[in-house]
């Protein structure tokens, strides 16, 4: 039925495939550039988000290199395509450490961040002479700076409950906010927002009624009509949502076409692809809470940073400089390495912890207890009469309120183990 000779070919194949595996394995050398492994999706459905982040990092690295690099060494961004898969990301951490890379960064997806954090911790525990730092530029799950905090992890974005804290503080002052609807994606990010928003609103404005709360499957809803009719049925005047990407764009579009008149308090109203999809339907209706937006440079008169933003736009006409935290992250890393005088992750981490840094938005502070960056936050609203528009739509954001880093600060439960 089967023949013996089948087997030989298999082994030839195995050997051949193994031989090919030789190519990517290169040794490390001392005088090479400081390399930062960028682990984000570069293919598949989220590829554009990943590429946008990569361009941010590359741009910042070029600026630093033009200014003379760090300790005389150039900075190089090494992209790793994680296909938005946690296990793939974990194996990229391994691959990066195998090449002697001492810093990895990632932002898209707290599930991915969790896997990377785990892989980094594990690696640093098992290979003390080949450690790696994880610089998190966008994954906002509070756990990473609370119960799962790690000496090897630094977060440069504001974590989710900080944003909710800022949002609810602002909303508490508005008398016309009476009924709030919480619509979020059905995963930990959405769960955190739903819970935190309910608690904080109850504390700050007990008279505000939670008109309803709904979790919907992430990335699967194509027709938000049923949700919009639920929001309408609840009589809510405001919606808090942590939705991002098409989940937000579709929601706002549907609300607009059904003539629903509510304000959307969002995390990612200015996130990649969202303004383009919402267009002017979001004007005076979509608010976002971020650490920065382009018109801050105009409002606070920051010509140097404006030049940076313009140069980025010229370089990448399709996207805008969006991740201010990448600016913070890169320059704080530079400062930390220069302070430590080495790229050894343990020393750099010690230098980074507790560091204060003058950012265009004011002084920011990397809290030593939990490695969470404390920074001012901006609540802004979509407007068609601003200097900087987003995604070439003619619509941009205008600041409604600036929340100082003291006001946005929250306690941490982190009990950090330090080596």
């Amino acid at each position, binding site marked *: 039925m089967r*023949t013996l*000779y089948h087997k030989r070919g298999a082994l030839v194949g195995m050997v051949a*495939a193994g031989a090919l*595996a030789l190519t990517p394995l290169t040794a490390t050398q001392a005088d090479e550039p400081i390399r930062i492994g960028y682990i984000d999706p570069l*293919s598949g459905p989220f590829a554009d988000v990943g590429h946008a982040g990569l361009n941010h990092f590359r741009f910042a690295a070029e600026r630093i290199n033009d200014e003379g690099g760090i300790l005389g060494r150039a900075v190089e961004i090494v992209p790793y395509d994680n296909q938005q898969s946690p296990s793939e990301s974990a*194996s990229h951490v391994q691959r990066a*450490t195998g090449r002697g890379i001492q810093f990895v960064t990632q932002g898209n997806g707290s*599930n991915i961040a969790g*896997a990377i954090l785990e892989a980094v911790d594990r690696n640093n525990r098992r290979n003390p002479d080949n450690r790696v730092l994880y610089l998190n530029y966008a994954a906002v799950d509070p756990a990473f700076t609370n119960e799962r905090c790690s000496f090897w992890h630094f977060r440069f974005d504001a974590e989710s409950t900080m944003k909710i804290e800022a949002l609810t503080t602002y909303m508490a002052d508005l008398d016309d906010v009476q009924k709030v609807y919480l619509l979020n994606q059905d995963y930990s990010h959405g769960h955190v927002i739903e819970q935190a928003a309910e608690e904080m609103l109850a504390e700050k404005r007990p008279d505000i009624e939670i008109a309803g709360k709904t979790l919907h499957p992430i990335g699967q809803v194509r027709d938000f009509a049923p949700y919009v009719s639920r929001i309408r049925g609840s009589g809510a005047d405001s919606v808090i949502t942590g939705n991002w990407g098409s989940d937000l764009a579709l929601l706002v579009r549907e609300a607009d076409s059904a003539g629903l008149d509510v304000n959307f308090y969002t995390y990612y109203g200015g996130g990649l692809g969202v303004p383009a999809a919402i267009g002017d339907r979001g004007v005076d209706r979509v608010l976002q809470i971020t650490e920065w937006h382009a018109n801050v440079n105009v409002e606070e008169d920051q010509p140097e940073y404006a030049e940076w933003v313009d140069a980025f736009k010229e370089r990448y006409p399709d996207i805008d400089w969006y991740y201010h935290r990448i600016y913070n992250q890169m320059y704080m890393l530079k400062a930390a390495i220069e302070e430590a005088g080495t790229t050894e992750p343990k020393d750099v981490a010690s230098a980074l912890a507790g560091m204060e840094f003058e950012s265009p938005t004011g002084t920011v502070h990397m809290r030593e207890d939990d490695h969470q960056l404390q920074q001012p936050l901006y609540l802004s609203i979509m407007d068609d009469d601003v200097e900087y528009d987003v995604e070439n739509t003619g619509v941009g954001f205008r600041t409604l309120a600036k929340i100082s880093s003291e006001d946005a600060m929250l306690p941490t439960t982190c009990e950090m183990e330090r080596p």
Partner: protein
Amino acid sequence: MNTTQERVAAGPNASAAVWAQRLWPWVLGAGVVVVMPVIFTSSYAITLMSHMGVMIVFALSYNMLLGNTGLLSFGHAVYFGLGAYTAMHVLRYIQATGFGLPIELIPLVGALAGLFFGIIFGSVSTRRAGVVFAMISLGIGEMVHASAHIFTGFFGGEAGLFGNRTVPSSLFGVDYGPGIAVYYLVMVWTLLAAVAMYLLRQTPLGWMANAVRDNPERAQFVGYSPQMVRFFQFALAATFAGLAGGLYVLVDEIVTDETVGMIQSGTVLLSAYIGGIGSFFGPVLGAILVVFLEGELSDITDAWLLYFGLLFVLVVMFAPQGIFGVLTQQFFAWRAGSWRGSLGPRLYGVASLVVAAIGVVAVIEMAYHYFRHWNPAEPMALFIFEVTVTGPMPWAVALTVAVAGLAAYVGHARPMLRRAMGGGGR
């Protein structure tokens, strides 16, 4: 091809020499397993090879369904993933309580979970073969995957579950912190599982699985219930898939919902089919190839998913016996001496196809640069050249190469090859 004689050689009257012949591939395989980490020492390469081991077990278990029993499943990852989750829960239980199960046996937990769910889902899905089975497997796959987001207690939500493989005790006192130790553990299990699945094909059940695949009616009239045969095969395949899941836990120490997902189910289908479902070792080759491509090709080119899809479509269209099938076919032809007299045309045919492939790859790479790069005017590296894709020249050259290669094959090499083989075969 003279199959008769080979069948005689492989028949039941095998002498000691034949036994040696039967064993050597396994011995060689074990040798390769030992030598590989000596050559490729980086921790990443070792993890990659460990993943290959996991995928080999998984793909072989898939072939117990598709190749042996003719059951096309779109949800085999369910058993892989549930095995992995269960093994992870046990690993975490050991972490939490100090329960004394040695780490070497954790994959068995995965296997038991696979068996358990295989029995449950198998009993409802194996009544029919063909499209009905395929659809039920798809439905169950989607259901379990969606459940992963609902039953977050068991599945750990989208963040998944973590464990630490260094916590449990070891039967042999080995420290499983370093990847290399896990690599050898995985490989021992892989070899054991492969031998077990190889032997399973020769049992009454294995034979009747083939019988039911080819002719369920005749199987009934020799006393076998096709449903029961499918069910047993299904449960066993699920067991080995669960074992693969348990191994996966040891390698990655993380389990997420993607392990039960459609993409994982698709990957194992692709692996088995690209390798070749007609022979035992086809899926082994396919698993190695797919893991390698997933890990490496994605670093080299943005177009890797497209290449992957094209490779699969081409295999289905032109080589349904799989890559391994093609290799063995050619090997037999060579042994039988039918390469003699047609060597020239064969080389010519292969060369023309390679030229066509180079042209096609060039076009695809340039297209990706043109459409996807933020600045298409920036020169790109293509093979050994540097090209600017905004001009017409590179396109013309690449298209010419592709068309010329294809035309040479279709219009010249293939007829020539047919003539040569028609003459040489007799």
